[in-house]
């Protein structure tokens, strides 16, 4: 199972890569939205699930989400991470096609549960 992780907080990104790898996932990580979008466009077949932060440099999480949803013939699930507890943001992200929403601070096992739930759905 290949996960694309887009998160600009270095410690959070590195710790999540460690956590997900220790749970038998393969992880491709980026610290900005622009590089992640390029990767989505070129390596679509190697992505099973995307976890993206909302506030990212160069291109935001919403753009990453749009890029994933524009991939034809594939339904790649997306989990959005954000520190915003604002209801409107959550609704907007769901409208753009996000499958799950995780508010920071969060517990890694909760993220893992959501990943597994989406994998089962697929």
């Amino acid at each position: 199972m290949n996960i694309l992780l887009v998160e600009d907080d270095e410690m959070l990104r590195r710790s999540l890569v460690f956590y997900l790898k220790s749970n038998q996932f393969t992880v491709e990580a980026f610290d900005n939205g622009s590089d992640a979008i390029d990767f989505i466009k070129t390596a679509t077949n190697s992505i099973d699930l995307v976890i993206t932060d909302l506030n990212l440099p160069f291109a935001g999480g919403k753009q990453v989400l749009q890029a994933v949803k524009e991939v034809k013939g594939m339904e790649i699930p997306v989990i959005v991470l954000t520190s915003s507890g604002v209801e409107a943001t959550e609704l907007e992200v769901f409208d753009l096609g996000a499958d799950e929403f995780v508010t920071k601070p969060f517990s890694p096992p909760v993220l893992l549960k959501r990943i597994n739930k989406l994998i089962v759905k697929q």
Partner: protein
Amino acid sequence: MRYAAAMGDPLSPVMERLVLFIVIATFLTALLFFALTLYKGIKHLREDRKKAKFQAALENVLFHYLFEEKSLEEVLGDPIFRAMKRDVLFQRVAIKAIISLHDNYSGIYSKKLEQFFEVSGLVNYSIARLESSKWPFIVEGVRDLSTLNHDASYSRIASRITHPHELVKMEVLLALIKMRGIGEITKFQKTGLLLNDWVQSNILYTVKKHKIAAPANLGIMLSSPNKTVVLLGVRLIRYYQVAEHDETLSGLISETADAKLKREISEVLAKNTLVN
């Protein structure tokens, strides 16, 4: 003289020496700046490499402790970690990393990070900063200790409220609120502590960020002789959307001559009327 120089006459010996001196001085200054820039660049590069080495060593210990059920004693016994943790740069890098994870992880993970900070001895770096005579170090110490909920340092942090520097005072106030809740403000309601708009916006941001619950005695702030405490009380009532103080607020609006306070109270009352 000017005429002679214009005609192509050689410079006088004094002028000659002066020009030579200027040329040499300019060359030496440029050389000195170049050497300094080079030295700084190399120093910076070395520090970055050292930081990356420290970061990797820390992650090796910290991530295994956080995610792989390894005991704290087991991970702290790592010989590389033990050797590195004596380095001040390592301590700084480690505390920054722990705080970053603490901001993002909740539940037992944030508790484990707090425990790591204390048991590993990294806490001593922050306590030394708190005890420093330089105000930026005190701010750093207060911020680290309060963010990582080091309860044993509460009294030491609180004692810094009398520091003459305004930024230290503000950081201490924010720390006390983070550690014990917004009720800490009421301890200062009879003092002359000035909570200007900048301090108040920082307090409100802290309350929001750390999801600090409304205290039961929020109304006490409205009877404070310190007008800045009263204003903060009004703003907190607005933030928490508490309607039980409406009567006190109505009384206050007719008593006070402060236009800003009047305006903010009327806004709270109008909002509460709409909500109810």
